[in-house]
């Protein structure tokens, strides 16, 4: 497992939930290889925030993008070369504040990427401001009287947006999380995995451990999935929704690959000549 680490010093706080996600991803890669998904084809992207440091620590190829924008980078990677398997890391601010539109549209398009949302319900790296998933009343430096906003429900939000695999894991249950990540990456379509992840300066592990529960049964229909997403509390883990519909790049160009099947200059000029003849 050590071979998936780079030489970068890890600067997450001791006890950070990000370590659990880091471990689960490193567990998942060799298991995915056993299932035929080559490590060389796996590409990661990250936005900006504590979640994103995983980019420096994981010894995988990828693109370290801007705050909120990396799901667009992920889409661009998949569209240009569909042979690549994209794992997109995001924090809850990265993916649901600055990058909300991009996340929603990636789901709407059913882009074949795996979106892992590190949910610490806070802006950790920028000193504890409230985030899109923070509880109403969260007191941070930008909301000294407590935030006035209700948090999003990421499960129902993403089911409605069009994600075709929607699940929640917990950084404190690495085995369960590893399994969900593997299923998410294997799923053809937009896989959204929310991971509950305590940022220790702001939340305690015990707040999570005391409340975590598991879905007894994977919902079978869209209706059941929405019901579960809305009725179960936000510490409920499991796969909420799984369905199949055509992925974006196949709708766009079928089995083509814009990179590996690109046309030569000669063929292009021949075709341009034909176009000009009709002009």
């Amino acid at each position, binding site marked *: 497992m050590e071979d998936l680490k*780079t*030489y*970068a010093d890890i600067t997450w706080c001791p006890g950070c939930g990000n370590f659990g996600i880091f471990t689960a991803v490193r567990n998942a890669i060799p298991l995915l290889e056993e299932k035929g998904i*080559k490590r*060389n*084809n796996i*590409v990661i*992207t990250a936005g*900006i925030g504590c979640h994103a*440091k995983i*980019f*420096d620590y994981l*010894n*995988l*190829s*990828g*693109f*370290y*993008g*801007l705050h909120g*924008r*990396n799901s*667009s*980078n*992920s*889409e*661009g*990677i998949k*569209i*240009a*070369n569909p*042979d*690549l398997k994209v794992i997109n890391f995001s924090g809850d601010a990265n993916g649901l504040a600055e990058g909300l*539109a*991009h996340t929603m*549209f990636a789901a709407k398009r059913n882009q074949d990427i795996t979106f892992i949302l590190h949910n610490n319900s806070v802006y950790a790296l920028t000193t504890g401001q409230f985030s899109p998933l923070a509880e109403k009343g969260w007191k941070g430096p930008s909301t000294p009287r407590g935030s006035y906003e209700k948090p999003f429900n990421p499960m129902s939000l993403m089911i409605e947006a069009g994600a075709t695999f929607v699940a929640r894991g917990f950084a404190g249950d690495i085995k369960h999380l590893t399994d969900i990540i593997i299923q998410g990456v294997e799923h053809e379509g937009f896989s959204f995995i929310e991971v509950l992840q305590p940022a220790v300066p702001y939340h305690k592990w015990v707040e999570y451990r005391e409340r975590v529960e598991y879905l007894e049964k994977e919902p079978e229909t869209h209706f059941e999935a929405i019901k579960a997403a809305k009725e179960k509390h936000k510490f409920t883990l499991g796969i909420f929704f799984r369905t199949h519909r055509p992925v974006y*790049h196949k709708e*766009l*160009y079928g089995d*083509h690959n*814009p*990179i590996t*099947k*690109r*046309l030569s*200059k000669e063929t*292009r*000029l021949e*075709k*341009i*000549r034909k*176009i*000009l*003849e009709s*002009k």
Partner: protein
Amino acid sequence: MDSDVFTFLVGGKAGEGVKKAGSVAAHIFSSMGRYVFQMDDYMSLIRGGHNFSVVSTSPRWISSHYLKANLVVNFDKRSCETHMNDIAENGIMIFNSDEQELENAIGIPLTSEAEKYPMKNLMFGVGAVAILSATIGFEKDKMNQIIRSEYPRGIEDNISFANTIYDIVSPDCGAKFLLEKGDKKRPIITGNEAISLGAIAGGLNVYYGYPMTPASSILHFLAKEAENFGLAVVHAESEIAVINMAIGSAFTGAKSMVGTSGGGFALMTEGYSLAGITETPLLIILSQRPGPATGVPTYTEQADLSFSLTAGHGDFLRIVASPATVEEAYYLTAEMLNLVWRFQTPGILLTEKHLSESSMTIDIDLEKAKWADQKMHNGGDYKRYLDTADGVSPMLFPPSKEIIKWNSYEHDEFGITTENAEMISFMHDKRNKKLEILVEYLKAHHTVNITRGDNPTNIFTYGSTYMSVLEALKYSKMNHTIIQPIYLNPLPIWELKEFKDQENIVIEQSITGQFATLLKEKAGLKIKTIINQYNGRPFDPIELSNKIKEVL
């Protein structure tokens, strides 16, 4: 009026086929072997308003429309009022006699004739084509052939209507204008089509866009041709998504391009800077329209020059170039795609509505397009940001057994985030080296168009305004040296030295004279005066030549 130029102007409401009539007229002229320049003036609406299309033609190369037309065809009253003074000496105006009465003009009952057919006023465009054909003595069967191929809906009705109108016009002004034949038939394309074809010829793989006039037609053209050329063409949710998708695609080795206008580019600047630090090859087509903000969507201006030269936070190499003609748009787009890959930095092809959406006859040597290529890693351990003598790191794309990390944070050679003081300046120095070799490269290439003349006052201009200047000088038989830098960043100052202490005037479409400022600041040129127009309209050659005479 320059006797070798003939101009046809057709005006009416949006939805009446004005633009199409202009384009069919252009094809009639090109079928006669003549050169054509077509400018469409339209409002930001779908139905109503006032639109017009001007088509100027000559047996010699022509680089502008003329507002004084020999034949003006108006579908409605508003068009007659608007174009009352746009008739050239010995020119004629033809109007719709079902709408009004008019002296000194020829009335044709367009509405009552069209109402005999189910398509009614949708046929006005065909009527204009018939009027033109009759007045220039273009044979009926040739006209019918063109209508057959250009108006595929209701062919027989269109032909019958056209023949009726042709016969009504003929007794009064049949074959009034006899146009000399030119040497050969040439294709007619718009600037945006040339940009699209240049990109394809240069190796384009993916294109992303969000609709915004005057760049939208690049998105439309490429979307239509995507399957034919094996491209991925995507209309994304915003310009922010557009540029970030394109950057993601470039990471996989795809030759990526995006297109927009000023407002969309404003949204892209965050990603532009991202391309700077990640050393992402990315070509942006920035087609200017009058700003600020929403400005005037369907008209032309050159007021985003300063913005394009400095957009994006932080220090990084930005390549900016602007084509003067439709042909140059083809070659330069391919060359810009090549340059951004060669130097691994973002670049902007700066143009304006006047070039993007005007149509011209072209002589293009397709083979001359550059093919975008990059320095590749050839084995061994890979470092994405390896320092090299010229600052350009070899590239490698996934899937690969090597680890390839592109990073928006300042990074080390491997691509891992750094805050180390030495590494920060080391990486700045590495990226900065690319400017020197870019300048060296440009010194060995054609970077400035110079048309020599013996008048001691030189004219500096850029972008499609160059074509307006050329035509103005041709019209007035003035003989100035015209200097049009193709590259605006880096500005080829080595080519401009000889003009430093001469008398120079600048012609551009910006109220503050952004191009003149650039020339003064970067090339130390003395500028006697600026002729600028900022009403959204391109220069008319006759008006421009008068303005030039005034300042001399």
